């Protein structure tokens, strides 16, 4: 289980503190497929980073009683001067896993060919996404944190990642964030809406979908003015 209690996150800007998350309460159960939908700039990525422990909240508590992945956004967690293979080795060492048995799977899944042994800085967007997904599947977690970028990509990658995550690991939990309510509808069993720094808990994905549509159509709120 993951439990967030009254989590706040503020960032200092030139015009004072900018509140991104304003009192988030959230519980994620083992095996839960949770979607979080919100507009651009709603704080989805911040919430994912806080869930992973990559960022610390300004106030509030987090409790992780299951293993939680790093934020699986494309390329975020790579040292770009190192090769794909070096990054695999690094990640395996950090999480205490032997990389050798995983090598065939990662090479096969990422489809990087000779680029697997080239520095990550020369990768395209698609290559980064495939490597990021392959690495995260190589390490077993109870809960995966997935950015929407991971569910785009070509049809083949789609199919392969579906198989790995939705079939082979169907007992695991994941948290998927997206600005696209259709994506959430497709992949998640429960969903909440992130808006104005608050998490609106919904009792069904349909409810979240409708609520999100309502927010989008309230035009003035569509693009919150960010004072940066």
């Amino acid at each position: 289980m993951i439990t967030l209690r009254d989590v706040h996150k503020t960032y200092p800007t030139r015009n004072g503190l900018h509140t991104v998350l304003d009192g988030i309460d959230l519980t994620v159960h083992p095996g839960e497929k949770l979607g979080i939908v919100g507009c651009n700039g709603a704080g989805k990525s911040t919430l994912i980073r806080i869930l992973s422990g990559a960022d610390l909240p300004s106030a509030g508590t987090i409790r992780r009683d299951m293993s939680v992945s790093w934020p699986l956004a494309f390329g975020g967690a790579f040292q770009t001067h190192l090769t794909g293979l070096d990054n695999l080795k690094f990640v395996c060492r950090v999480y205490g896993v032997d990389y050798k048995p995983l090598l065939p799977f990662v090479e096969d899944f990422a489809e990087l060919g000779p680029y697997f042994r080239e520095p990550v800085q020369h990768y395209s967007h698609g290559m980064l996404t495939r490597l990021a997904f392959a690495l995260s599947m190589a390490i077993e977690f109870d809960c995966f944190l997935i950015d929407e970028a991971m569910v785009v990509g070509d049809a083949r990658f789609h199919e392969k990642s579906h198989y790995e995550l939705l079939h082979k690991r169907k007992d695991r939990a994941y948290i998927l964030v997206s600005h696209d309510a259709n994506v959430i509808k497709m992949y998640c069993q429960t969903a909440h809406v992130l808006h104005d720094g608050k998490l609106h808990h919904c009792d069904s994905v349909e409810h979240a979908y409708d609520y999100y549509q309502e927010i989008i159509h309230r035009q003035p709120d569509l693009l919150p003015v960010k004072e940066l």
Partner: protein
Amino acid sequence: MTTIGRTSFARSVAIQQRVIGALLLREAITRYGRHGFGVLWIIIEPALFTLGVAAFWYLAKMHILSSIPIIAFAITGYSSVLMWRNTSGRCSKAIESNRPLMYHRNVNVLDIFLARVILEWVGATASIAVLTIIFASAGAMNWPEDPWPIIGGWLLLAWFSLGLGLTVGALSERSETFERTWPIITYLLFPLSGAVYMVEWLPKPAQETVLWLPMVHGVEMIREGYFGDLVPTHADPAYFAAANLVLTLIGLALARETGRRVRMR
């Protein structure tokens, strides 16, 4: 704010060892190149320096005036500088180049600094050991007289480098001005650090002044071991250790604060 976990101390130590090990191997690749040829440079660079100093020494006919064994003098001096200069220099850009790796929550600022410091310890130690063996075997210098002051001085110098590395690394992350100024401070400290003089050669008031610099004590201890009774040395290991302790505490506090701030961004 808090992050509540139920990780035991023993498990935390195991995780930290794993993370530092992973970072060490990652750093070794960028520091010494994929095939390890870069390792040779930690020997070649001080070797060239040593030969250069010796060449000047003989050209200036100093060997007639002074009884100091110049090769051993250059090796001990330059290796000592390498130790604190490289650790602090390498820590200074450590966070920036490892920032993406902090997406993994067990990778912390302190681990990143420690990995770089350990790598430089190994490099500098290999350098002084290999150079001593090469030059002493070739007959260009005598074997060290007494290993104990060398080991003591070297360990204290390593400790000093750790405290300095943490402090410089954290301050560089905080302030670009500091990051840009530190190399200049390093250049200024180089001639003062004991690398190019023996404390005994200086007038009394100057001796007292330079002995405020902690690393001078380390170099003096190491030379005491290399030279024996050839030149009187001035070292106060207790002062050096006390200075190291203070510097390390400052470094740890700064690194902790940096870690929190970097995570908060």
